[in-house]
């Protein structure tokens, strides 16, 4: 019986999962790019598994790691919110524009390889934070600032005054409004809608 030397065949190559990458960003970042961690060829394990693979490495043929990746949510394998997270194949583009995306987003990476099995791994977490820097000061009303005595009750509508957080964290803040009104004036505040 003659045992012939195996030919190089990378088909059965084995990969190890990459280490977890955690990217921390903020709403105010304006957009960042995060490299997608890829599985790495485990040469030792692969060579133990199959002499054809050993042949590849011993003959200098590299079982390269070429393949493609895509990213989904790890919770249900659903598509990412494209406006927030998108994949270029090698990177995830993070575009956090408002507080709706604040939190931790665990992503699952699906790597389809030229050699070896397709692998899935949860090794990319995107953490988005938001820190309120300021809130705009609204402009004083310019209409309805005149009251003629003996007319019916007059109200100054301030409901159009919109306070906006910068950046747009969309947090629910505690608001307290107080008034300083000339004690001699007949003006009062509607406590039901201060």
């Amino acid at each position, binding site marked *: 019986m003659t045992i012939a030397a195996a030919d190089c065949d990378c088909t059965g190559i084995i990969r190890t999962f990459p280490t977890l990458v955690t990217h921390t960003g903020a709403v105010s970042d304006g957009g960042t790019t995060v490299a997608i961690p890829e599985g790495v060829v485990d040469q030792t394990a692969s060579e133990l598994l199959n002499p054809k693979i050993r042949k590849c490495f011993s003959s200098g043929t590299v079982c390269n790691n070429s393949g493609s990746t895509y990213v989904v949510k790890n919770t249900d394998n659903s598509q990412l919110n494209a406006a927030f997270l998108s994949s270029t194949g090698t990177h995830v583009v993070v575009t956090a524009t408002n507080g709706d995306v604040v939190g931790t987003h665990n992503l699952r990476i699906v790597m389809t390889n030229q050699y070896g099995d397709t692998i899935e791994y949860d090794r990319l977490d995107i953490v988005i934070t938001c*820190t*309120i820097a*300021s*809130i*705009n*000061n*609204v*402009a*004083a*009303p310019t209409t309805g*600032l*005149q*009251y*003629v*005595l*003996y007319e019916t009750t007059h109200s*100054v509508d*301030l409901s159009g*005054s919109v*306070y906006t957080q910068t950046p747009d964290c969309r*947090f629910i*803040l*505690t*608001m*307290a*409004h*107080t*008034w*300083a009104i000339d004690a001699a*004036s*007949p*003006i009062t505040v509607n406590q039901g809608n201060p």
Partner: protein
Amino acid sequence: MTSVFTYTPQDPDFTETDTVTFSITIIDPCETTVINDAVFSPTTLTVINGETGTMTFNEVTDSIEVLRNIDTLCQSRSYVLYMNDGVTPASFLTLSGPAGGPHTITAAPTLDAHEGPWQFKLKTTLDAYPSNANNDHMTSIPVVVNGASCNPAGLGWVATPQVT
């Protein structure tokens, strides 16, 4: 208005105080109210020269008190009688009556020159609002002085000098 915003989950706590300031102008409508014409009763004062005649009018109203249905909302008013020109004091008319009305205009012509139709003027002034551009309102007072009929009953006599 001062607004305080707080968000304690943020570390350190977020706190911001914003203040917006505005003024509300309260306007007294009496400053621009329009004085109405006096309403006379009778509408024309007709009198015979040498006699007296009267006409009356209630306190003159103004537009804001009529609008709000509040009498003398713009407080007291004064009246002055003038000749046709609105400048010269009336010569044979007098005004009487309590404050707040009703008011009485009495004509007491005595001169032949008083006979004829007249358009005297009644000036109404809101005492508390001298800056009202509509103040000092003039109302025409129609007065007709008719000539007297011959009536010798009132002739005056003088004693003749003593005859010796």
